[in-house]
């Protein structure tokens, strides 16, 4: 994770998020890049994974004979159960989400604003079929919401922005953003750069339209 190396690839990024998830935490991982975080949780961490279609204690993806059509994750991918797992219905599952019982939720994003607004469900394009799933419940329900994303979109535009131009998923809900180039804390102190990868805070400040503060090195 040294600042001298280049931008992080998605597995390094997932490992970085996994490093910051407290032992024993109840965690929901969103579809896509966030799902990779599970592969990097250290053995014995005691982290319990919640999947919003109705399970705590979700195990790794199922392969071969393990595949059971009655056991999938929120992305409809066949998964396995770990000892201590529990099943529950949708209203209970989202009571856990909305009720503040999850310690951490890790979500992907199209955009995050400096104030912690999240846009991750809809591009707003008129011909796009909108789909939200549990994203809005997770965004406002978990005690801490981490976003993991690339800092710049394929067209080069920043995804950490003064205010989101895509339709919002939740307001002021994101507390930390993990990207290939830097990790940011969002809060009362504005956007604080915790770590950089193959770049500098000054270089990022020149490319982003939000004021950045470098974290004090302990």
């Amino acid at each position, binding site marked *: 994770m040294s600042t001298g190396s280049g931008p992080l690839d998605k597995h390094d990024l997932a490992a970085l998020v996994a490093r910051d998830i407290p032992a024993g935490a109840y965690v929901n991982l969103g579809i896509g890049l966030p799902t990779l975080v599970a592969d990097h949780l250290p053995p014995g961490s005691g982290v319990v994974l919640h999947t919003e279609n109705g399970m705590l204690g979700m195990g790794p993806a199922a392969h071969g004979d393990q595949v059971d059509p*009655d*056991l999938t994750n929120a992305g409809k991918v066949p998964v396995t159960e770990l000892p201590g797992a529990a099943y529950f219905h949708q209203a209970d599952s989202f009571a856990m989400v909305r009720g503040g019982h999850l310690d951490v939720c890790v979500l992907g994003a199209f955009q995050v604003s400096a104030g912690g607004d999240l846009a991750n469900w809809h591009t707003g394009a008129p011909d796009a079929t909108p789909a*939200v799933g549990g994203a809005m419940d997770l965004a406002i329900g978990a005690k801490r919401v981490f976003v993991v994303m690339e800092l710049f979109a394929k067209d080069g535009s920043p995804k950490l922005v003064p205010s989101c131009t895509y339709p919002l998923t939740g307001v002021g809900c994101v507390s930390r953003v993990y990207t290939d180039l830097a990790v940011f804390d969002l809060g009362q102190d504005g956007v604080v750069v915790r770590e950089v990868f193959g770049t500098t805070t000054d270089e990022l400040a020149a490319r982003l339209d939000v004021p950045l503060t470098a974290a004090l090195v302990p």
Partner: protein
Amino acid sequence: MAVTVCASPAAAVAGVQDGSTVLIGGFGMAGMPVALIEALIDQGARELTVVSNNAGNGDTGLAALLAARRVRKVVCSFPRQADSWVFEGLHRAGEVKLDLVPQGTLAERMRAAGAGIGAFFCPTGVGTPLAEGRETREIDGRTHVLEYALRGDVALIGAHKADRVGNLVYRKTARNFGPVMATAATTTVVQVSQVVEVGELDPESVVTPGIYVDRVVVA
């Protein structure tokens, strides 16, 4: 009323009226009562409002009901998937309306209907397009949006086993919307893999008590 163990999926879905609101269980294909949906296609009810988490996968189940042009409106949280071409085509053509609801709100609105609650205030969606123009209230310093109960005329759900008085147990994540939908419909119809005799289900493990269940069929 006592539960009826039906001889066929056709008997189980008999009497569904045109214009009904039909709650259909399942998350993707897990827990989706495919035999009941196929029977509903044969039964012929039209102008349906379907409430389900997704808007059909592939060409079977809910997707087949949509393709048969029996559905006027879909109330769901996640219609856009790699294999949801039937819904997307109909929606783009303006032939099916979409009412998009956050997944937790969808579940809670049905839970409320089943529990005799008319509406509730919920923080999900505040500040987003899905809450635009809706009644809100500040509660403990947080904005909540008013959500109304969502009731069905019929629920079609899948479960693992039923006993002859309609108690249900489920399997793994196929449980999903079943227990909530069972409470929220006037008539609840359940597709199971097995019907067992009274006394064979451990009362401590029953998830849906038979009071919520009207018809059961093995399929």
